[in-house]
């Protein structure tokens, strides 16, 4: 079988096919996919407390960034962060235990789906809040760990928060190694981007003299090749907003999808999962079943654990 890095045109859609992934990337993509599907299933069965936001359809964003980030880099994630966490640590057990409040939870079950801290990784559930904190971390890194960067994931809707602009201003002004990854999935909860954003992310970045890079591809290899030189510049103190045009396959959280069916269908048509299965069936099927089985096993094992323990410490 011949596989090329240069994507071939898909005769059905007229768009380029996806290039062949490394086994590691494919495994990780599938792990995140099946992890998220499992969560929705567990919620459906009433086995999880509270809420969660899955990154179905957006898994390739943190997977593409995985090899561009190193252990010295600080990652700030948001409410839709399972993919970010798994791409960094691959630790499905710890994450599921955190979400289910079981022993072995990354944060004792206190933080849950959207408040996780581990080494140089931190997520929090208030939109925009992490940008100024990341600016502070970037300031520290520039001084003590030259070459390291702070990476913050935010959505399109989060550009409604003033904290984003205060931080962009600081990042440009102080030449901070700050990488803002924008997952523009065209919607914020129920509100389409067009109904909440005047202008564009690019225009807003430009206003601060912050570089902007638009990623429309869903091809991990292609995304990486495009981003690599730009991320290297971030490390030298040139902040960047990398905007991914992406698609939220599932509901905002659980069972709260009010989008018209065409919009959901359009998202599904862009799904890397189906596209990759079509473009690389052998590769896909070699890993898909095992990833599903692995997540099944993780879920069974974690669900059987005793509840996590914690005593209020503040």
């Amino acid at each position, binding site marked *: 079988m011949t596989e090329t890095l240069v994507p071939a045109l898909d005769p059905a859609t007229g768009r380029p096919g996806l290039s062949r992934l490394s086994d590691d990337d494919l495994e990780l993509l599938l792990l995140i996919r099946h992890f998220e599907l499992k969560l929705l299933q567990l919620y459906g069965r009433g086995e999880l407390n509270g809420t969660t936001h899955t990154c179905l359809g957006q898994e390739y964003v943190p997977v593409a960034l995985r090899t561009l980030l190193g252990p010295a880099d*600080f990652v700030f994630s948001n409410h839709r962060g399972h993919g970010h966490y798994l791409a960094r640590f691959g630790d499905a057990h710890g994450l599921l235990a955190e979400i289910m409040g079981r022993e072995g939870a990354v944060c004792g079950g206190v933080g849950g789906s959207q*408040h996780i801290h581990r080494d140089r990784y931190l997520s929090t559930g208030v939109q925009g809040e992490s940008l100024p904190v990341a600016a*502070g971390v970037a*300031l520290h890194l520039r001084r003590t760990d030259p070459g390291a960067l702070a990476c913050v994931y935010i959505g399109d809707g989060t550009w409604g928060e003033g904290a984003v602009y205060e931080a962009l*201003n600081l990042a440009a002004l102080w030449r901070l190694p700050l990488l803002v990854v924008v997952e523009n999935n065209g919607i914020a909860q129920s509100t389409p981007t067009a109904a909440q954003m005047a202008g564009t992310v690019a225009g807003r970045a430009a206003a601060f003299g912050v570089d902007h890079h638009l990623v429309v591809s869903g091809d991990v290899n292609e995304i990486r090749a495009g981003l690599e030189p730009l991320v290297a510049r971030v490390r030298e103190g040139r902040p960047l907003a990398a905007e991914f045009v992406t698609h939220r396959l599932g509901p905002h959280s659980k069972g709260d999808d009010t989008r018209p069916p065409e919009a959901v269908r359009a998202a599904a048509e862009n799904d890397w999962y189906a596209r990759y299965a079509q473009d690389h069936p052998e590769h896909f099927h070699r890993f898909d079943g095992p990833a599903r089985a692995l997540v099944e096993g993780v879920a069974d094992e974690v669900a059987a654990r005793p509840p996590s323990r914690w005593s209020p410490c*503040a």
Partner: protein
Amino acid sequence: MRVAENLNAALHGLLDDDPTAYVLGEDVLDPYGGAFKITKGLSTRFPDRVITTPISEGALTGVAAGLALTGNTAVAEIMFGDFAALAFDQLCNFAAKSVSMYGSRLPLRMIVRCPTGGGRGYGPTHSQSLQKHFIGMPGLALYEMSPFHDNREVFAAMVERGEPCLFFEDKILYTRPMGQADPLFTVRRDGELAVVDPALPEPAARPDCVIVAPGGTAHRALGAMRSLLLEEEISCRLLVPSRLYPLEVGALLPYLGEVVLVAEESTAGGTWGGEVAHLVHQRAWDRLRGPVRLVHSAASVIPTAAHLEREVLITESAIHRAVREALRD
């Protein structure tokens, strides 16, 4: 030494002793040295660790939290404490939460300085005492500057706590001397608590009234104590805790009498005094002659014109009156 000088020296000392310490805020660089000149000389001596910021209270507080998160000691100055409102999210939802919401304790050495209070004619949005809005947040401690507490010591205590601290500095104190010079009274320290008693040859075993006041109100309480003593032979004791929240009420208990009053500059409603009263009632109700009395500013905006401002803010004579009323009942 004036309080402002003591505070400035404390910041110098902190930057001197702790190579990870940063000071950041608006207009903090020399030669300006901050709106109240508290950061004077710092940027000249420590150009890398004294950082001037844009007018972005939310972001500068977030940056301080980011520095603390990566193991530094961060001191942020909010030019007027009123603007801490713009940093509320960073304080409440990020800094205070992060100490414990990730399952195990995440120490953050972070101090947010808030020049506070009225009496200088700055008007309704530059004169408030916002302490009460930050009370009761797990992971956030509140301290108040006082003439009886060396600021270097207080800073050390805040850093030692390993959680975000708000430091309220009553602006009126900046130009006042440290300690107190009135020979009528003596000050002693019991841990973090300052205890001020009449300097009588044979002090009464129990003062007639005990006034609890944060640092910024202490001199007004002392003024009232002086006139009460001289004009009416009423002896009062003043207790000034350095940490307002969480309040170590156990430290106050040995010094309380039958009549207790809390004096503070906050406007009425949901005050710190209400919290103090509740704690004292829980621990000492049967020793009290009546409920703890609260004296504070009126339920009003704080006007600019001096004669109007005086009508709203807590004064020495309001404390004097309140003590007399408490003793009459």
